[in-house]
């Protein structure tokens, strides 16, 4: 099960964007059920906070990841985790990418 554009485009347009591909690939490197803090993700991905939030929201709206905020004020912490749907979407995307490259 992938994003809305997945039927028309073999490469899921939600993932087939450099920034979002990096986000999904980074989260997929964690064991299932683990979440990554927004701060560390920003360091690893190298995007500005505003840019990162925009991409995260798009992926969250598609159900590919979950964003959880805990605490208040300076003690607040935002964690991002890849959902089962997001992991499956990345697997589908990887397989589709392989097929596309084979056909080139």
């Amino acid at each position, binding site marked *: 099960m992938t994003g809305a554009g997945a039927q028309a485009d073999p490469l899921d347009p939600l993932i087939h964007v450099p920034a979002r591909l990096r986000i999904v690939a980074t989260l997929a490197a964690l064991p299932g*059920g683990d979440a990554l803090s927004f701060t560390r993700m920003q360091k690893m991905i190298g995007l500005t906070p505003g840019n990162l939030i925009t991409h995260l929201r798009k992926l969250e709206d598609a159900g590919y990841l979950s964003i959880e905020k805990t605490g208040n004020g300076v003690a607040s912490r935002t964690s991002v985790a890849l959902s089962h749907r997001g992991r499956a979407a990345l697997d589908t995307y990887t397989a589709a990418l392989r097929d596309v490259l084979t056909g080139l």
Partner: protein
Amino acid sequence: MKEEHDMDERTTVAEDGEFDPRAAAKLLEQTSRRAQRQFEFPSPLLSLIQAAAVLAAYGAVWLSVRGQNPYSGPSGAALPELYAFVAVAAVAVGLDGRRARAGVSGRSSRQAWMRAIPFTAAFLAVYVLMGALLYDGFSHAIVYGIVPAAGPLIVVGAAAAGYAAAREDWQVLSFAIGLVAIGAGSAFAGPAGVWGFAGVGCCALLVCRAIVQVWLRRG
């Protein structure tokens, strides 16, 4: 770091805005590999630090017991050295774990604490066994030689092997079986020689682990 990512993005998206599949495949592979390296625990550097620490710890004891006849056990000076090197290795493990797990939360963090329980129990059981053997009148060669040198490697290695087998983690399973083999095999070297053989064996195994980790990174 940011410049590197920006450069990636500029070079992977073509002028017409299309994201080239070949560039996508490369970016996916690079990002996955980079993330795995950053989350990796233990790191190859930690393996090398552990290799040096175990060689120094076992070596210090071996130097203090070689030539003893009859065998009486490690000298009072060797034991602080042994525990100092164990402490160095423990601090290195803690720092490397903190590096890898920074910002990571969830199931595997909770499981890490659960995993520590059987390993700690197995390790402590060796010292309880030493006490029991001493109480039962076994010689110092057994109680202060074979058991403390080979015992921890066998029990901790066996516990790690069981854990790795359940997860089908062949890299850890191979390492754990190697530990068990070194522990059991080095016992043939006698109460003094066991320290030397176990120290060199563990050091070689840890260096091999570091080499395999680096090789797998290059994949």
